[in-house]
């Protein structure tokens, strides 16, 4: 499934947050969106997920919904958004509760994604008993349970420490390679974007406009620091320029 963004702008009152964003997320790719703080990355993701209504422009999906997909466009949240009164299994099952699945099928789906994310032994644990990394695994499992066609990830690793982030990037990549789900990955971490994305969309300072969309040509297995250094440098300059300009404007 492709996601087509046509001339999307958004503002909160007189505050313009996004300005004329047009892009296409191709089937089976990860598009990372980066930019300085407050550039409207998360707002854009909210609009793509149908959780915010764009002031102008429109979003189109193109292509058939894969069979078995219960929630074609699915979100993974920065702060995990787990129901604290539900166990791990119930949190994953929550995404399935409102669909016509019999109990056997529902449990099957929950167990399948818990196994995929290494959570089967923690099915009865409450979120408070889990570490941040484990909580985000539950968030990922919940998203996978509905068999999404497009994944929207809103800084999914930013609440985690560096080690956990590294582990989860590897796990997420392994899961993604098995399914190749179209994904939009919002992050402020350039290295995460370089490790994961097929293309990186750099947004300007507020109101966010597309500065550049850059393809990451190297295969994911060959994305060492050295191989990507020139691209990293170029992207970092773009972000730095925007962040410095934003700081000056703020003063």
């Amino acid at each position: 499934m492709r996601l087509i963004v046509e001339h999307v702008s958004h503002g909160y009152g007189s505050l313009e947050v996004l300005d004329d964003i047009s892009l296409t997320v191709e089937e089976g790719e990860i598009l990372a969106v980066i930019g300085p703080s407050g550039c409207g990355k998360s707002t854009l993701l909210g609009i793509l997920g149908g959780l915010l209504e764009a002031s102008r422009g429109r979003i189109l999906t193109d292509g058939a919904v894969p069979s078995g997909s219960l929630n074609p466009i699915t979100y993974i949240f920065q702060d995990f958004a787990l129901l604290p009164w539900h166990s791990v299994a119930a949190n994953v099952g929550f995404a399935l509760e409102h669909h016509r699945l019999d109990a056997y099928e529902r449990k099957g789906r929950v167990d399948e994604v818990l196994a995929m994310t290494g959570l089967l032994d923690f099915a009865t644990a409450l979120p408070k008993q889990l570490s941040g990394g484990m909580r985000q695994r539950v968030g990922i499992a919940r998203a996978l349970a509905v068999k999404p066609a497009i994944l929207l990830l809103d800084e999914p690793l930013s609440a985690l420490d560096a080690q956990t982030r590294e582990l989860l990037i590897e796990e997420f990549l392994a899961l993604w390679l098995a399914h190749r789900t179209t994904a939009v990955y919002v992050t402020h971490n350039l290295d995460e974007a370089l490790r994961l994305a097929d293309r990186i969309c750099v947004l300007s300072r507020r109101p966010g406009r597309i500065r550049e969309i850059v393809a990451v040509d190297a295969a994911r297995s060959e994305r060492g620091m050295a191989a990507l250094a020139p691209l990293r440098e170029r992207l970092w300059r773009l972000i730095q320029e925007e962040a410095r300009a934003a700081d000056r404007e703020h003063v």
Partner: protein
Amino acid sequence: MSEPLRFRGGGFVIGPKPISSCLGGLAVIAIWQAVSSAGWVSPIFLPSPAGIARALGEMALSGQLWRHLGASLQRILLGFALGSAAGLALGLALGLLSHARAAGLPIVSALFPIPKIALLPLFILWFGIGEPSKVATIALGVFFPMAIATYSGVDQVPRTLIRMAQSFDVPTHAIVAKVILPGALPGILAGVRISASIALILVVAAEMIGAEFGIGAFILTAGNLMRTEDLLAGVCLLSILGLAVGFLVSLAERRLLSWR
């Protein structure tokens, strides 16, 4: 020259001390009893703990205790049920609906501070001297704190949980039932705790104004007859009732909010 590092991190840690907490209460009762037994204070002014216990025992044996307690409990339960159900409904509306909040919150804020017992004469005029006026006073007293507690409980449910449910296309009624209500439960139970204490105060006040039975009526009669042992036995009953309510709410919190 080496010397052991001096520990300086002691103190400022409050831990549970069950023996001290039992001894504290027992010591107060023992001193009270000693003062009474020594005859330093007239039993009319301050009856002894033993005298109060005897009065309670006599009340229980004569059936008076159950009659008064039953009458008070009936009023509390009915008033609390009516007031808290209505307060819960209004609190949900204030928490969930912009128009309800804009229109209702100023009204609730204006009416909340009125001591509800001041309205009892009006309720007597409306509903008569019997049960309905007392129940209405309790219900109104419970209604506002429940509405405000529910409203702030709903308001404190993290928005990201609601957005999560929306992102999975969960229907609105299910979001209210499965996300907002459980999320607001800590606030709602805090409201129950406050409302229950208010109900206890109001039932006594209402019964002192016009009732034949009830703990408030019993205390008032005992006071009028200078039977201070009976008076304090009634007060003890209120204390036990308050403790029981607190215990039940704590039990509900432990069972329902174990996820916190």
